[in-house]
């Protein structure tokens, strides 16, 4: 009887000591960003399960689909805030959607842990909102990382870049900066917009033929990856490098021979060798039975672990106290160390990662292999590639 009482008291003590957080997760589980959204959700769920098993913080996730569509995202956020009564929201993957959410977020004032949304337009929109924690690098960080790579290609003789960019906020937002920076690096640049999902690039690629680009650089979505890879060959453009920058790649693209030698940028690959990355990969494989290449999975994982760490430090479910603790969090992640500081422009207060997390990979032999920077390269870049 005495033992039972002690056990019950211990359980009661644990329950009282445990901080319970109700967290809204608003991600694109359908629409053009769904591959990234689902990967992010897997990472979030994995971390939440680990945190709940730890017993110090209890996370209750309320998941909603933003459909990669502002018209669906705003009502979904409103429901999370008014019906599900969450104080903390993890989300904001696509820039266009996150921009649309900025008004309602400022209205309901949750602690907003932003997983993606690299566009500076979003940085401007959240300027001055003190509960905004942006983990993903901004577009100027992406430009800086890509430029380092392009500078190394310049030293290998590349001089002309043809840029194909989708004409929505994702593709267009940083295009001027890209053009200027590439020109500053010595490149001749020709840029053309396209409609994502149109599938017809032959006309624009034919136009590029006269320019004879060394590098074809496309900024679009997964739906554009195969048509571009196919039509580059069909019009006989013959660039020395095809460089793609979609948020995610299509299912099965790595096994398609047309993906061979295509280069892309990512923040993480399972082959990245650091302790947290290895831990994440092993846990992910154990839970889902497969390894992911999508960096949004460890990004979601990192956000939840940092939130739990902050909640533990705050010892409270109060979002203001958690935000205060989160601002001081220092932790190792699959991407490297995480610590929040003001963004480079100073418009937002809490920026997690910067250009240092980006790496360039190349599709070689049906998998993505890190090729740049040299510190993470698993093998040398194949340049010129065969397209």
């Amino acid at each position, binding site marked *: 009887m005495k033992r039972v009482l002690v056990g019950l008291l211990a359980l009661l003590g644990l329950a009282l000591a445990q901080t319970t957080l109700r967290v809204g997760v608003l991600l694109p*589980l*359908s*629409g053009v960003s*769904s*591959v990234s959204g*689902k990967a992010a959700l897997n990472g979030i769920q994995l971390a939440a399960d680990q945190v709940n098993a730890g017993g110090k913080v209890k996370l209750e996730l309320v998941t909603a689909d933003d459909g990669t569509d502002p018209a669906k995202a705003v009502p979904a956020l409103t429901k999370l805030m008014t019906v599900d009564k969450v104080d903390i929201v993890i989300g904001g993957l696509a820039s266009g959607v996150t921009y649309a959410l900025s008004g309602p977020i400022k209205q309901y004032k949750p602690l907003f842990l932003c997983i993606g949304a690299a566009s500076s337009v979003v940085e401007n929109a959240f300027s001055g909102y003190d509960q905004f924690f942006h983990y993903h690098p901004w577009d100027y960080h992406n430009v800086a990382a890509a430029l380092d790579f392009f500078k190394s290609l310049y030293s290998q003789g590349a001089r002309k870049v043809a840029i*194909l960019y989708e*004409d929505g906020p994702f593709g267009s937002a940083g295009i001027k900066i890209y053009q200027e920076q590439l020109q500053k690096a010595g490149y001749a640049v020709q840029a*053309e*917009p*396209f*409609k994502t*999902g*149109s*599938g*017809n*690039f*032959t*006309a*624009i690629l*034919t*136009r590029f*033929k*006269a320019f004879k680009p060394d590098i074809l650089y496309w900024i679009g979505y*997964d*739906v554009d*990856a*195969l*048509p571009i*890879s*196919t*039509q580059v*060959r*069909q*019009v*006989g453009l013959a660039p020395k490098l095809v460089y793609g920058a979609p948020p995610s790649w*299509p*299912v*099965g*693209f790595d*096994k*398609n*021979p*047309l993906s061979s030698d295509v280069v892309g940028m990512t923040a993480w690959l399972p082959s990245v060798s650091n302790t947290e990355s290895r831990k994440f990969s092993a846990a992910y494989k154990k839970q889902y039975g497969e390894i992911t290449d999508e960096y949004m999975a460890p990004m979601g994982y990192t956000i939840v672990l940092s939130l739990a760490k902050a909640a533990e430090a705050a010892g409270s479910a109060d979002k203001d106290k958690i935000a205060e603790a989160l601002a001081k969090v220092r932790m190792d992640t699959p991407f490297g160390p995480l610590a929040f500081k003001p963004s480079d422009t100073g418009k937002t207060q809490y920026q997690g990662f910067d250009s240092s997390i980006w790496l360039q990979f190349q599709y070689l032999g049906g998998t993505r292999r890190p090729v740049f920077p040299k510190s993470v390269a698993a093998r040398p870049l194949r340049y010129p590639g065969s397209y």
Partner: protein
Amino acid sequence: MELLLQTLLNGVLAAGVYALVASGLALAVGVVGIVNFAHGEFLMIGAFVSYLLFAARGIDPLVSLGVAAVAVFLVGAISYYGLIRPVLSAPELNQMLLTFGLSVLLQNLALLLFGADTRVVSPPYQGATLSLGGLSFGVVPFAAFGLSLLILLGLYWFLGRTRLGFAVRAVAQNRLAPGLLGIETQQVYLLAFGLSAALAGIAGVMLSVMLYASPTVGFAYTLKAFAIVVMAGLGNLRGVLWAALALAMAEALVSTYVPGGGGWVEAVFFLVIFAVLTWRSWRRT
């Protein structure tokens, strides 16, 4: 000169698939008299048939063409019997709402079954190219164009040279009189709607190789198909080929010669329709 020829070639090759998708839509509008907003979803089913056969059994999309045509014909026939037939005498707005609902239902069913991921089919000839003088083009778009042309010629032959084809045209011209002459109007409708769906299914297989398979793959092509059908004149099957050619050419020329023209692709389609409809109305007055 080479750039112009290459641009014209790009336009001609694109026109084949546009015409195939639009012919199915024109058949539904012209014969059954129904504006089918779910036409793109029939195309999507064809794309998924191709993807699933390739992913599960490695079956070449060329073989999947026949399977998809039969499968989507059946889906079209069932949709006709279960949904379209009861509303044939209802106001047009109700019919349109019904097919719009069918479109949403099929798209969401695909989302539930396969998710929203973009999936690719990888036959070995996918990136193969042909060169003709200074011109270069893909084997797959060329074959798709040739196949579309053959199917459309077969369709025109069927409608213009066979008894069943005459019956289809008779029903298209008048809903009541053929019935009085012993033609089974309902069966003709069923055949026409099934054929319309099958054409979309075949186009879906082609697009699974040229683009991708996803629940939303049919949307862009349905919009273009509507534009082509309107330009050709509602239900005018022969006009579809020329309308598809004109619109694909306009698209290719603007993309190639107008700076930033790639972003104008969809606008070009609708600008051409604007011009055609306005011209027609002026001609009548």
